[in-house]
């Protein structure tokens, strides 16, 4: 095997126990390979434990941009027997496996790379990760120079012996990799591009946190919960540089109420959580609704119900985000489809929350927040956030009735007026009222803001050819899996449509859906939540769903295969769509 597959990428799988340093290897490789000029994309799956268990990371290396995981593995580095036993059934015949043959079962594809022994010879078994990094760099024929810089940075405040030891270990791994390369054990036609070396390398978590900063976020109150914690941690580390107020609250109820209090006072607050924590915030969300308070909540999904699978991925909380909070009030739900969107939509979330005085829910998932990739740039135009606030006069009324439903928002201590927020139904000043005529007026006023959110919606992205019989629809983190799957289906009359504003649905939704006679929705849950929403809101049938709810993200080949089977089968209905309870995978 010496030339690349059609998808132009090399796929590396790293497997091992928690605490064995897979994370370190992933971090080292993605940085060094990107710096060498390769496009990279990595995503991981791991168990909810600190030591032991079995975790894995996939790294895609390519000559053109990549942003979705493949099933195919070209190179598997196995750090222990358990990872090997769990992951080897998923390997192809031609997969090159590297690992210690004394620790692993016999396998025809296994090439003996005694990581631990080499590391011990270099001074410490803990350098095994560097051996692995070196081996991959050697296999890909990149130079070792950057590694020195990388190690110096990683171990900046540690003894120099540590750097030297890791270097020796990496060099040994590198020599090993070069030998394999000469034997053409892996494709050698992967090209490097000088321009990629200068790209940004970001995780989903970082993209969201940077988007929050760009959105003017200066207050974060949250309670730790995977996979939402990363954003809180990232911002905590920027506390001093950016003048943020950071608070780890006693619970999620405190977090959402603090965020509301902060917005009331003119700060821009973020709460980051996952499904369980978000569920506790339901009443607070409703409070933001009636008080017309801006609010931004990052809901990083993981599989439920309840504790579910804490470290895995799912798109199972769309309906939670849609329906949580009692009573009726407008809300905006954004679901970024890429690292780029994770940044730009988080930024957008702060602007929308402020401009439209509504809660905004940013719906991501473990797959997206934990994935890492390179991108040339982020959209940094007009970086200074625009604040939608006024200085009050003495007759100020927080809930002044207006045509579009938006009342100018004042802040306490800023002007001569008083700013009164009330969770009861209230009059224009913000005082409790049981005037039932006013109730209707206020209800209508709040609803008008929802219309604004629909009119000014983020436009869905059309993927592939304009002419199609079948439309494959997805939302949130599945954008690039579908995009790439469609590239493998060019012989079929199918196009794609991706939504990153999932509520309220953009006004053009019905038109776009109407371009195809058959519609299939792809989502990471077991009941077709988005399909249901689409069907309900545009009255157009969704004929099938492709669903995945095993805690892992879709893969490009898997999705392409499912779509092909579906499109080529004569069986699927042309009329009527499916009833809600009939949604199921194909």
């Amino acid at each position, binding site marked *: 095997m010496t030339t690349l597959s059609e998808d132009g990428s090399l796929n590396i799988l790293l497997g091992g126990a928690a605490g064995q340093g897979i994370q370190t290897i992933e971090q080292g490789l993605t940085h*060094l390979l990107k*710096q060498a000029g390769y496009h990279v994309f990595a995503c991981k799956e791991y168990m909810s434990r600190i030591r032991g268990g079995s975790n894995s990371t996939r790294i895609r290396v390519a000559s053109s941009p990549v942003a979705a995981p493949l099933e195919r593995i070209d190179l598997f580095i196995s750090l222990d027997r358990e990872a090997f036993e769990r992951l080897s059934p998923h390997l192809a015949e031609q997969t090159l496996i590297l690992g210690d043959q004394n620790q692993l079962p016999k396998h025809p594809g296994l090439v003996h790379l005694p990581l631990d022994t080499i590391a011990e010879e270099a001074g410490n078994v803990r350098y095994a990760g560097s051996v692995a990094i070196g081996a991959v760099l050697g296999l890909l024929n990149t130079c070792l120079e*950057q590694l020195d*810089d990388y190690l110096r940075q990683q171990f900046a405040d540690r003894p120099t012996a540590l750097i030297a030891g890791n270097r020796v270990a990496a060099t040994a791994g590198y020599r090993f990799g070069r030998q394999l390369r000469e034997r053409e054990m892996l494709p050698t036609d992967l090209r490097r591009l000088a321009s990629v070396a*200068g790209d*940004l*390398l*970001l995780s989903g978590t970082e993209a969201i946190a*940077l988007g929050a*900063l*760009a959105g*003017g976020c*200066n*207050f974060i*109150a949250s309670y730790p919960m995977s996979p939402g914690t990363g954003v809180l941690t990232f911002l905590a580390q*920027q*506390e*001093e540089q*950016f003048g943020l*107020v950071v*608070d780890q*609250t*006693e619970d999620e*109820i*405190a*977090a959402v*109420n*603090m965020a*509301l*209090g*902060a917005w*009331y*006072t*003119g*700060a*821009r*607050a973020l709460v980051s959580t996952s499904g369980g924590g978000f569920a506790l915030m339901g009443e607070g969300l409703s*409070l933001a609704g009636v*008080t017309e308070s801006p609010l931004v909540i990052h809901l990083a999904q993981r599989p439920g119900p309840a504790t579910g699978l804490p470290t895995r991925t799912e798109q199972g909380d769309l309906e939670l985000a849609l329906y949580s909070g009692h009573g009726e009030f407008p809300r905006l739900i954004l679901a970024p489809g890429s690292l780029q969107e994770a940044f730009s939509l988080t930024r957008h979330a702060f602007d929308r929350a402020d401009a439209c005085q509504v809660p905004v829910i940013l719906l991501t998932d473990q797959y997206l927040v934990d994935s890492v990739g390179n991108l040339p740039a*982020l959209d*940094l135009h007009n*970086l*200074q*956030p625009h*604040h939608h*606030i006024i200085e009050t006069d003495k007759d100020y009324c927080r809930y002044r009735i207006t045509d579009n439903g938006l009342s100018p928002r004042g*802040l*306490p*201590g*800023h*002007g*001569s*007026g*008083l700013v*009164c*927020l*009330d*969770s009861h139904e209230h009059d224009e000043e913000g*005082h*409790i009222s049981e005037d039932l005529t006013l109730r209707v007026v206020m209800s209508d006023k709040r609803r008008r803001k929802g219309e604004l959110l629909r009119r000014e919606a983020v436009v869905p992205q059309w993927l592939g050819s304009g002419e199609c019989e079948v439309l494959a629809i997805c939302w949130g983190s599945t954008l690039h899996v579908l995009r790439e799957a469609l590239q493998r289906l060019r012989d079929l009359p199918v196009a794609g449509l991706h939504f990153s504003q999932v509520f309220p649905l953009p006004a053009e939704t019905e038109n776009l859906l109407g371009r195809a006679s058959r519609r299939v929705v792809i989502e990471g849950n077991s009941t077709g939540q988005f399909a249901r929403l689409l069907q309900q809101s545009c009255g157009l049938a969704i004929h099938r769903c492709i669903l995945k709810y095993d805690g892992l993200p879709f893969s490009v080949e898997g999705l392409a295969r499912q779509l092909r089977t579906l499109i080529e089968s004569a069986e699927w209905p042309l009329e009527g769509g499916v009833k809600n309870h009939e949604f199921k995978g194909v």
Partner: protein
Amino acid sequence: MNSKVYDREGIDISWCPGCGNYAILKILKQALSELAIAPQQLVITSGIGQAAKTPHYLRTNFVNGLHGRALPVAVAVKAAHPDLTVLAEGGDGDMYGEGGNHFLHAVRRNPDLTHLVHNNMVYGLTKGQASPTSLPGFVTPLQTRGVSQEPFNPLSVAIALNAGFVARVFVGAFDQAVTVFKAAIRHRGYALVDILQPCVTFNTLNTYEWFGTHTYPLEAAHDPADRQAAFARACETERLPLGIFYRVEGQKTFEEQLPVYRDTPEPLYRRPLDTSRLQALIAQKRGL
């Protein structure tokens, strides 16, 4: 300052005639005016209950939010704009029941705010169920055999958590209450004032007369700096002492410990984003 600056004319107040809340409203306006705090500089956060309606009855900025959740809102308001005077106000059910966890953790943070709890030992708004401070034996439509649980003792809990200012007043002792409110608001850091207040409709046990005979002022010799003594006095249950039980000055407040206010008290809304710093942070992601 005349206390009339806080008056709202022609409003419909939903408290029962004779309710202790009227006295609390008067004490509050008196204390605020003596401290010359302009309504524009004042924020009251409250929860839900008869007590929690108070901010609707005076001229002030306010967030009348959720049952039990006034404290997190108050902590955030103060953290976002430290120059404002912030009060969190509500009933015993609101603050010690539904919001009990926030009470514990607000004390631990030590934000510079005043926590006013109207303690009528009953759930007023929901028509007379027991509250965390209801006394054993108190019979209600729900506690048909009478309350059997140990009453929650907010003062001893606050002292145990080393709250910087812990006091109890009775609405029947107006002058002392005004003095304590003022001291609490002036205190730098978290200040708890538990306010004994009869509920004339749903609490026939703890009446004006009952409070009259079951309370007495802490004697002048009580040293509020003495935590052990304060704790002992807070644990008295036969007759309830009134006054400042515990006071320590100089504890660092939540806001003082936020690096964002190290150099300037400027509220968050007046600070622009440091765009060049953000660009630099993003640019770092291009390197190793």
